[in-house]
């Protein structure tokens, strides 16, 4: 997803000038870098961090929406939500595999998530309070993810770019599905419409925060742009998202909770109010409403089920010993 994936990224490399120039020339020629190609250590490290954070976001992102599977209002919505959350798990799996091509194991990455060392998108630290949150997440959160990920389909690292092509198709399906939930609510009763407005009020600003800090604060952005890991800056993507989303809110008859939001003819985009960066950094640092609950849920799934994974491993070992014994006979 997630330009937040670059927060704290250290793109420093120690390779010599000639190597770096040759590498940059490949990037500039829009050649894809593949796992076995030579690459600067900083490039590898930046990608591992970004892909891992993206994968963690998919996995942690299963929790807020999973919160409504048992309570979905109709069978059609229940099946669609379960399938959507399953898709997100599939994205996680796919992304962990892409990261593994860079020489880091899924176990290592998961340990970093569970220890709190690795980050995931701040958006998933907000609670899903009502059914309208499920519509809003599909509409805004998957929508913001798509904004981030469409350019990543042209990312210089081949496996990530290819993963994004597949993932983007599913994310846009999720986005349409979420918007359709909102449309149904907004054409429903007053209570339903109020539920939709309330969800937009709570999710709008956190969705804008998904694009990460202002460009001026985004320390490692330049190197990532040069390496074509990133194609647009955080603020550019945020602006695209706002410009695409505000008319959708208007069509729903909902009010975007930003009194300063105004069409700017000259720039051909919306001006908007300032994001509460204190809130953003507080959530990134682990103090959002659900940070602790999310990590606890992931740790419980991991720890309480360790015996299952150990059993599978023990069985596989026994089976291979038996096979060897049979072969020896």
């Amino acid at each position, binding site marked *: 997803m997630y330009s937040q994936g670059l927060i704290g990224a250290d793109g420093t490399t120690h390779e010599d000038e000639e190597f770096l120039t040759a590498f940059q020339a490949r990037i500039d020629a829009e050649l894809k870098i593949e796992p076995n190609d030579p690459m600067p250590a900083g490039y590898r490290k930046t990608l591992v961090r970004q892909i891992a954070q993206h994968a963690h976001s998919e996995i942690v992102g299963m929790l807020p929406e999973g919160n409504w599977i*048992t*309570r979905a209002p*109709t069978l059609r919505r229940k*099946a669609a939500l*379960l399938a959507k959350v*399953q898709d997100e798990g599939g994205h996680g799996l796919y992304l962990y595999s892409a990261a593994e091509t860079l020489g880091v194991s899924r176990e290592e990455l998961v340990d970093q998530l569970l220890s709190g060392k690795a980050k995931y998108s701040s958006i998933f630290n907000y609670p899903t309070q009502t*059914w309208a949150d499920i519509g809003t997440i599909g509409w805004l959160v998957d929508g913001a993810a798509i904004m981030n990920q469409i350019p990543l389909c042209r990312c210089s690292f081949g496996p990530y770019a290819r993963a994004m092509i597949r993932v983007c198709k599913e994310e846009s399906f999720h986005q349409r599905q979420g918007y359709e939930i909102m449309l149904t*609510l907004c054409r*429903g009763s007053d209570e339903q419409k109020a539920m939709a407005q309330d969800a937009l009020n709570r999710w709008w600003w956190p969705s804008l925060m998904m694009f990460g800090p202002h460009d001026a604060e985004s320390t490692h952005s330049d190197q990532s742009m040069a390496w074509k890991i990133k194609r647009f800056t955080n603020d550019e993507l945020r602006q695209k998202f706002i410009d695409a989303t505000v008319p959708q809110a208007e069509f729903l008859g909902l009010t975007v909770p930003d009194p300063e939001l105004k069409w700017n003819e000259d720039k051909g985009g919306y001006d908007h109010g300032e994001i509460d960066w204190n809130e953003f950094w507080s959530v990134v640092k682990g103090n959002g409403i659900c940070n602790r609950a999310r990590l606890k849920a992931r740790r419980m799934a991991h720890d309480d089920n360790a015996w299952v994974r150990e*059993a599978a491993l023990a069985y596989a070992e026994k089976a291979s010993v038996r096979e060897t014994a049979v072969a020896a006979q």
Partner: protein
Amino acid sequence: MADLMPDMIAGAKFKYVLRLADDQLILGQRLGEWCGHAPTLEEDLALANIGLDLLGQARSLFTYAGEVEGEGRSEDDLAFLRQERDYFNALLMEQPNGDFAVTIVRQLFHAAFMVPFWSAMTGSSDKTLAAVAAKSLKEVEYHLRHCSEWIIRLGDGTEESHVRTQAALDELWGYASELFEMDEVADEMLVTGVGVDAAALKDDWDATVDAVLARATLNRPEDSWSQTGGRSGQHSEHMGHILSDLQYMQRTYPGLSW
């Protein structure tokens, strides 16, 4: 008297299809609780897959039950807007997820029954049920393979996994017998060529389960106890809690579209 017959048959068929739908709905609901919390990412996807299969089957069955009843009730009316006493799932389906062993044993019991059940139902005189059966059979065959593989790994894995899985078998064993029960409704469906002789599937179920348990080095529990009641709407304490989640939206906001 003779004109009442079609109505009586329709009434029995409605109830028969509804029971079948309730089994898949309630078990699917239970599997939905796992989403995001499974032992591995792969298993998270697999449990969601099985849950989605069951929800899909439930939807076809509820829709058909509504047609059979002929009172204009939709799949959602039937799935969400009944009193607890009017749900007819077997008690096995509503048992809590417990640890992963309990979930997988519960699923094994279900799948080992549904494979021969759907297989027999493909020969139903009712074209709709035969079609649902053909589609569902392929799905539960996969569920059975998936669960069997887990039971074998858990039973023949570590000391801990063996103990947990044996405990899960002991905990759920007495709930299996309800699957094979026949009553007036089921008999009626059997003689009209619509339904399946569930009692006759017991040998098949025993053979499947025994073979899996043997490979898993697990003991088949004694047939010393059994629970019943679901088919007549007499549920365990768990059912009310399932319904309070399941029905939450429809009860809180009656009569709206979502």
